[in-house]
């Protein structure tokens, strides 16, 4: 069996590759989501068409399947890790942005009113009131996006970006169950542990209030 030639070292190597894809995609997506989410929720943006159009367009993107995103991006950028990261980031952007916006919009109006009315400058209102209150929602978004990205990253081996997907797809093509599991089990473990770890971090960020 082929699996015998796949040492633990290789599996570890592919797992790290997989993680790297997910982390770089999610970091990029998060920076964009945070910036865009903050921008569209500023009071001066209320009722403007540009931010509304941007969010509507992004939310539409949620309907596009991950595999289709990878295909579309490949058509533009060709194969390789960069394409995979870009496609993964696009897919993670929507759940993250959605939660950043929901978190910031969910800050109760009277609380904002009290903050401004007590003389907090807008920047202080954001750092001391809006962001802390939105953090739980923002974290929930990161968690969802990361878990989805771990799964989607398995597809990126199809465009030559490596990762645990290469074991899964090779195993499937060769009807080699152990080889397939050598990719599938670490992928599943990765997703579950990412969910757990981020869940703990979320609880910590939320504090006692």
């Amino acid at each position, binding site marked *: 069996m082929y699996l015998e030639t796949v040492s633990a070292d290789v599996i570890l190597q592919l797992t790290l590759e997989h993680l790297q894809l997910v982390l770089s995609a999610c970091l990029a997506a998060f920076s964009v989501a945070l910036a865009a989410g903050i921008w569209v929720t500023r009071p001066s943006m209320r009722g403007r068409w540009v931010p509304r159009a941007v969010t509507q367009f992004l939310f539409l993107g949620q309907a596009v399947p991950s595999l289709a995103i990878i295909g579309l991006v490949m058509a533009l950028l060709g194969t390789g890790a960069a394409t995979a990261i870009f496609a993964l980031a696009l897919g993670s952007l929507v759940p993250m942005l959605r939660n950043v916006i929901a978190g910031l919009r969910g800050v*109760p109006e*009277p*609380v904002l*009113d*009290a*903050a*401004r*009315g*007590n*003389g*907090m*400058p807008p920047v*202080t209102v954001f750092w*001391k*009131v809006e962001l*802390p*209150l939105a953090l739980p929602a923002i974290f929930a978004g990161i968690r969802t996006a990361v878990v989805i990205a771990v799964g989607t990253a398995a597809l990126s081996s199809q465009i030559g970006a490596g990762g645990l997907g290469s074991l899964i797809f090779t195993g499937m093509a060769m009807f080699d169950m152990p080889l397939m599991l050598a990719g599938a089990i670490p992928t599943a473990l990765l997703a579950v542990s990412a969910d757990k770890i981020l869940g703990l971090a979320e609880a910590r960020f939320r*504090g*006692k*209030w």
Partner: protein
Amino acid sequence: MTNTVSRETHIVLENIWKRFDNGSVAVRNLSLDVFRGETLVLIGPSGCGKTTTLRLVNRLVEPSEGRILFDGENTMDMNPDKLRQRMGYVIQGIGLFPHMTVEDNVSVVPKLKGLDGRTVKETAARCLDLVGLPVQAWGKRWPRELSGGQRQRVGVARALAGDPEVILMDEPFGALDPLTREVLQDELLALKERLGKTILFVTHDIHEAMKMGDRVAIMRGGELVQAAEPLALLSCPADNFVADFVGSDNHLAMFSFVKVKDVPLRTENLPVVTAEATFAEARSVVEKSGVRYGRKRFVYILDAEGRVMGYADLESGRNPSDPVRIALKAAPSVARESSVHDALLRMVENGVINLLVVDENRRMKGLLTFGDLNGLIESQRKGDGCISKP
């Protein structure tokens, strides 16, 4: 009107118009002076522009036309954040920062003002003490752990912590049950006496308005209809709207608004003796004062510091040379801040037609007599002292 209120203007609204982007007009040509140290209550039916008017003062809303002077300075020329730090702001219900402890909530404005850590801590502790939530017991609690009344107290403490010149209150007690509301109103009145701040207060409850306000400004459809002392609103309503709003034809209702300190009290020729006086001396004092309690004659006994110890019945056939203090009994009394309604109740309960009025140290402030109240009703009915009858 209390003696802490001056006629010096603190906030001046001049011909203010506020039109919102959607075309609605919230405030129409409103001009209003707020005097230093007074509590001015804005009241009117919902949508009358009272909250907008309050928010115009700290620039949460900016006027479309007209100007607002704070301490003589146009607020539009000031930094809005610095302006707001000079004005405490209390809103209904849930304005506390849920992710900050009680102490941190109260520390917000002192920190914004750049006070050092120790001063911030001391200020927060002092302000929480003022509202009856000592920092040792309450400082580390979260807002969600507090009752509605306690949250509102924290809100008041937070507004006081910046040592503001003015406190703006937007229906601060609107979400509370009637009992808690009553308690917090009384506490605020006491605080106001101690701190002497200018307070601008919005409510839709006419009882609250008449109780809290040195003056009450009635608004309708964005316009100021009348601003006057509670008693003047009752006796001289500007039009039928005001008359209906304050209920000036209902004297019993009226008495629940009117405070004892706002009605004429008898302050001269009082039936008062010291504890050493004899019955004979007391009788001559009472004769001279002419104050009677139905059939009986009573005399109030004061201690060396001038505090009221109680009163003594002079009809008990004692030896004229005995000291009056042997007949000393607790005297029914009211505080100056109580309503006339409460005073009347106390008269009925005790079967007296004169009631002792005291301050918080039980010093005698005068006598409320039934005859004087009658005179008051009479003058209300006739509209004496009104510039023009509606």
